[in-house]
C-alpha cells in the first residue's frame, strides 16, 4: 500500500484525526495563554503588562469563538454534536468539552470582558447614533449605572471572575492535554505529563501571540510601542518557555531511558517521518532558537529597535514551534501502528473538508473576528476614554 512501511493493522492505514484536530489544541492553547497573560495584570498586579490586558482578553475571545469549528468540521455527523450537552457520557474526557467550553466562554471570558468594558459600552451607547447606538445599548444588558460605586463593584467582581478564570484556563487546556494523555492504547500520547506540557505550551503560545499582536497593532496605529510592557511580556515568555521546554525534555528523557516496548518504533519515527517537524521545526527552530533569542535580550542591553526585531522573530518562531508541537502530537501519534511494526503517511487534502484551505481559513478567522472586536470594543486607552470626556456619566 502506498505510504505504508512495514505492517499496519488493516484499519490503521488512514489517519482519523487530521490537521483540523491539530488546530484545535493550537487554538485553545492561544486562548488559555492569552487569558493567563491578561490575568497577570488583573490578579497579580503586574502593571507593566497593562497595555496588553484588553487586547489579550479580546484575542482569547476571538480564538475561543473559533475553537469548536475544527471539531465540528471534523465530525462525521456534526448535527449530532448537541448530544454531548444532552446525553454526555460521564466517563469520556471528550464529553466534558462542551461544558468546559461553555463555562470558559460565558462564565469567565465574556463576563470579564463585559465587566471591564461596561463603562465604555454605556458611554458609547450614549454617544453613538443609529445602529451603533442600539448595538451598544443591547450590550449594556440594561445596566447603565456607571457611578463610582457601581464601577468599583465591577472591578471587584471582575477580579473574582479572573481569579476563577485562571484555574478555568488551566482546566480548558489541561483537559485538551488529558484527551490525548489518557489514551493508553497510544504510547506517543499516553503520559500524565501531557496535560501539564499542554498548559505550559499554551501559555507560551498565547503570550507570544498577544505580544506580536500588540506590536503589530501599535505599528498599524502608528503609535509608539510601550517597550517596558513588551520587555516584561517577553521576560515572562522566556521564563515559561524554559519551564515548558524542561518538562518536554523530561518526558523525552524518561521515554529514552525507560525504553519500553514502543520505544524502538517511536524512536524510528522521530528519526524519519517526524524528523523535520519534530527535531528541525519544533525543537531547533521553534524552541531552542526563540529561547536563545529571548535569553540574549535578558543578558545584553540592545536598543529598542533591536529588541523589537528580536521579539518579533522569537514570537513568530514560538508560534511555529508550538503549532509543530501540536502537529507532532496529533499527526505523529497516528503515523505508527499500534503493532509497533509499521508506519503510515499523512496525506493532507487541499480543498477537502479537512484540507489545507479550510485549515488556513480557520487560522485566519480568529484574526478577522479580533479585528471586528477591536473595532467594536477598542482596547486602546485613548479611544475607550474618548467618549467619557464629552459625555457626563449617568449616575
Amino acid at each position, binding site marked *: 500500500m502506498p505510504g505504508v512501511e512495514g*505492517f*499496519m*493493522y*488493516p*484499519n*490503521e492505514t488512514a489517519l*482519523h*484525526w487530521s490537521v483540523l484536530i491539530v488546530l484545535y489544541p493550537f487554538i485553545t492553547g492561544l486562548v488559555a495563554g492569552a487569558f493567563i497573560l491578561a490575568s497577570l495584570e488583573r490578579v497579580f498586579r503586574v502593571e507593566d503588562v497593562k497595555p496588553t490586558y484588553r487586547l489579550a482578553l479580546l484575542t482569547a475571545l476571538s480564538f475561543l469563538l473559533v475553537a469548536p469549528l475544527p*471539531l465540528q468540521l*471534523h*465530525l*462525521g*455527523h*456534526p448535527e*449530532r*454534536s448537541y*448530544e*454531548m450537552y444532552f*446525553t*454526555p*457520557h460521564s*466517563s*469520556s*474526557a*471528550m*464529553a466534558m*468539552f462542551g461544558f468546559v467550553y461553555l463555562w470558559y466562554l460565558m462564565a469567565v471570558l465574556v463576563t470579564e470582558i463585559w465587566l471591564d468594558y461596561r463603562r465604555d459600552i454605556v458611554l458609547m451607547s450614549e454617544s453613538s447614533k443609529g445602529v451603533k447606538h442600539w448595538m451598544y445599548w443591547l450590550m449594556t444588558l440594561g445596566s447603565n449605572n456607571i457611578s463610582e460605586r457601581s464601577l468599583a463593584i465591577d472591578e471587584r467582581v471582575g477580579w473574582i471572575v479572573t481569579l476563577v478564570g485562571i484555574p478555568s484556563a488551566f482546566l480548558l487546556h489541561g483537559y485538551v492535554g488529558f*484527551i490525548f494523555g*489518557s*489514551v*493508553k*492504547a*497510544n504510547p506517543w500520547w499516553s503520559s500524565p505529563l501531557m496535560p501539564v506540557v499542554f498548559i505550559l505550551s499554551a501559555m507560551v503560545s498565547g503570550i507570544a501571540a498577544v505580544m506580536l499582536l500588540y506590536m503589530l497593532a501599535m505599528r498599524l496605529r502608528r503609535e509608539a510601542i510601550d517597550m517596558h510592557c513588551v520587555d516584561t511580556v517577553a521576560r515572562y515568555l522566556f521564563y515559561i518557555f524554559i519551564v515548558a521546554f524542561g518538562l518536554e525534555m523530561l518526558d523525552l528523557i524518561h521515554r529514552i531511558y525507560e525504553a519500553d516496548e514502543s520505544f*524502538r518504533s517511536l524512536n524510528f519515527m522521530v528519526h524519519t517521518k517526524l524528523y523535520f517537524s519534530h527535531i528541525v521545526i519544533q525543537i531547533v527552530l521553534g524552541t531552542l532558537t526563540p529561547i536563545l533569542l529571548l535569553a540574549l535580550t535578558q543578558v545584553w542591553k540592545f536598543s529598542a529597535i533591536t529588541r523589537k526585531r528580536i521579539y518579533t522573530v522569537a514570537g513568530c518562531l514560538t508560534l511555529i514551534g508550538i503549532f509543530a508541537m501540536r502537529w507532532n502530537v496529533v499527526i505523529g*501519534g*497516528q503515523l505508527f*501502528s*499500534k*503493532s*509497533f*511494526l509499521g508506519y503510515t503517511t499523512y496525506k493532507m487534502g487541499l480543498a477537502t473538508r479537512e484540507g489545507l484551505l479550510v485549515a488556513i481559513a480557520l487560522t485566519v478567522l480568529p484574526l478577522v473576528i479580533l479585528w471586528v472586536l477591536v473595532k467594536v470594543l477598542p482596547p486602546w486607552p485613548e479611544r475607550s476614554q474618548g467618549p467619557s470626556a464629552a459625555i457626563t456619566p449617568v449616575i
Partner: protein
Amino acid sequence: MNLSRRHFLILLPAAAVAWQAVLAGSPEASPNYKMSEHWWGMLIDIPKCIGCGNCVRACQAENDVPDGYFRTWVERYHVSDGNLSNPEVISPDGGKEGFSPAKEDEGKYFFVPKLCNQCADSPCTQVCPVGATFTSPDGVVLVDQTYCMGCAYCVQACPYGCRYIHPTKKVVDKCTLCYHRITKGLTTACCEACPTGARQLADLKNPKDPIHEFLKTHSVQVLKPQMATGAKAFYYDLDGSVR
C-alpha cells in the same frame, strides 16, 4: 469441491468440534433470548487456522463491510530464530483472499485471526463522548450508529485497531460478534465459515459451553494483556511475538 475421503476424515473431527460449539454455545431463539444469561467471547485456536480467509469473506458478506475496511482479518506471522521482537507480519487485504505460499526458510509461520476483543473494560466504550458505543449486558461491545457522531475518539482508544469510520455512513463501525445472529441461536458468520473450527463462539455464562473445559485444560492468552481491557477473545497457543 473435490474432497477426498482422506481429507474428509481429517476435517471431520474439526467439523464435529465446531458443530458442538455451535450447539453448546447457542442461546434460545431471539424472542426468548435473555441477555443476562449470556456473556459472549470467542476462542481462537491458532494452530488450527490455515489462513484461508473464509472468515474475512463471510464477515464482509454478512455485515456489508466496505472494501478496504475490516471487522475481522487474518495476519500471517513469520518469526525466525526466536526473534520475538521483530516478526515479519503480513495481512494482504486483511487476508481475505488467503496468503501466497510461504518461503521455505528458517523460522516458523502461523496465522493469527483478529477481531474485536469484546473487552469487558473496553477503552473504546470509556471514551465515547455520547455513549453511542456501549457494552451490552451479555458482554458484546456495540455501536448505536444512529447516535454516533463520528468523532473517531474510540478508533484512537482501541489498542487492537479493530474500529474504523465507515466511508459512507460516516460513523464508527466494528465487529458486533454477529449480534443479530447469536441472539437468534446462531453462531457468528466467521465461526460458521471457518473450515477448521479455529474460531469458536464462547458463552462464558453457559456452563455447558465447551469453552470452560478448554480453558481448564489449555493455556490461553489474550492480546496485549498489559492493556488490562478485560479482552474476551482468548487465543490458544499465542506466540510471544504477536501484537
